């Protein structure tokens, strides 16, 4: 069982991620923006972070950069879950240190399988 942090300004999307991952036996914490996510990440270490790109305040890519600077998050898998599919944005996410890029809407089975792959 992994401890996952989902970051999205949409409560619906957070609930969908939580429902999907919890049904697969994972423990899920939620954050509504990048700052809240960083606070939670400082308090405890997560095995995986699933973050949106477009959020009020700091973007998801900035969150990835900030997370990579935290101790213990250098190799933590970080998945970007967004409606954006622009290649340049994907490249920016990759350069920032994101592990994967999922385009919304996600298929629950796909999300779970991707999670297993990156955690293995």
């Amino acid at each position, binding site marked *: 069982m992994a401890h996952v942090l989902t970051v999205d300004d*949409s409560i*619906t*999307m957070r609930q969908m991620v939580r429902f999907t991952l919890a049904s697969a036996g994972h423990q899920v914490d939620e954050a509504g923006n990048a700052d809240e996510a960083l606070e939670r990440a400082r308090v405890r270490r997560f095995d995986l972070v699933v973050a949106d790109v477009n959020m009020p305040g700091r973007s998801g890519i900035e969150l990835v950069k900030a997370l990579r600077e935290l101790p213990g998050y250098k190799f933590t898998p970080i998945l970007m879950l967004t409606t954006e599919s622009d290649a340049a944005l994907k490249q920016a996410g990759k350069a920032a240190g994101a592990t994967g890029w999922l385009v*919304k*809407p*996600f298929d*629950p*089975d796909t999300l779970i399988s991707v999670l297993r792959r990156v955690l293995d």
Partner: protein
Amino acid sequence: MNPVALALRDHRARVPLVGAALLAPWLWSIFLLPLWAIAVSLLLTLAAAVFILVRILPPARDERAADDGGCDAAERLRKARRRDAEQRDLMHQTIFTLHTHVHRWVNTSEHSQGDLRRVQTEVGQVLKHVESAIVQIGESFSAIMNKTAAQTECAMKLLRSEDGDQAAKNGAWLSLPDYIHAYESQLSSVTERMIEFAAVTGAFEEHQRKMREHTVTVDDLLDELRAMAKQTGKLALESSMLAGSAANHRHLVTLTDTIRSISEKAHETTRSIRLNLDAIREQLVESHKTMRTASEIGARAATQAKVDVAQLNLAMMDKTAEVKDAVEHINLIGNDVQVEINRIIVAMQFQDITQQKLERLHQPVLSRVIEDLRVIADESTRLKGEAGYWLNSSVKADAPFQLVRGGVSVPLELREAAVIAADEPHPVPSPVVPKDGGSVELF
């Protein structure tokens, strides 16, 4: 204004002359006519003067230039041309501003049309997504409800007879409670038979115990017979020795009595042994009967139990297969339900994406369109008022237009004005402060 007063004002220089000319013929009669005739004559003269001023004499404006002895013709002409130029400039500025405004209105409306087309497209997609999501959610919920009902039905089948009571009586497709009752009944029957068998076994054990007791008695009697035989042997030896000597006749008699006594005792013992053997035989017969009964009961119970259990086992195997099928079916339905839930998750994500798209549309695009239209409306309202004033004091429409650039008036045709207006930067209207106090950013 009163035409009489206007005529008096315009011909104020001529009024004394006209009055004198009209009164002169009457001067000679002042001293001849009575006073009332003079008054009537003065009134008639005054009326005649007014009539001449208003109706006969030409308007004073037409002759002003000719009569204005203080201005020369060149100066008046220059003034008139300057007024014309000013009014043409005013007219041109009005038309130029109107044209610029219309040009901006066209640009803004085209831009707004583009935004609105984008809004229309996005809203169309949004509606499509929302409709798709709603339909998908509804179908998924309906499917989940149907599948849950099927699961329940499948589970309930395990708890009731497939074909009703008649089938249950025939031993086919009993419900699980029926199976439990059948097993309970079967177990009770077997238990009763086993208790019966145990009772028979108890009787058999009693016979066995009695037989052991008789056996012990026979052993004791045999020991006694062995002792008597040994004693008889000794006595026989002694009697033979006594018979050889023939001296101790008294001893021989005593010995003979003893032997007789032993013989009687042996006879008694033999009779006891016979009785014990008879008892043992009898017990053996009873034991045999008991054992036969027990065997028959046991065999009957075992056979019956075997038959019953075999029937129940067969039925239970069928029921187990049915349960297995039902559980597999329930699992399949559960998988289908999971698929439907996944679809709902996807549909709800569509809903969320749609909401975000609407928010993005609502804030930048629609706000900009609304602000543009509001600014244009304000400008149009202001310009309408100004144009009304300018048009009230405008010059002839066919006069050539002039564009004032750096204080120099340049004649301009309408078509040229349109081209210049399109090329020149549009005047930036003053920012409009919205009601909520926020600033407006114009593009």
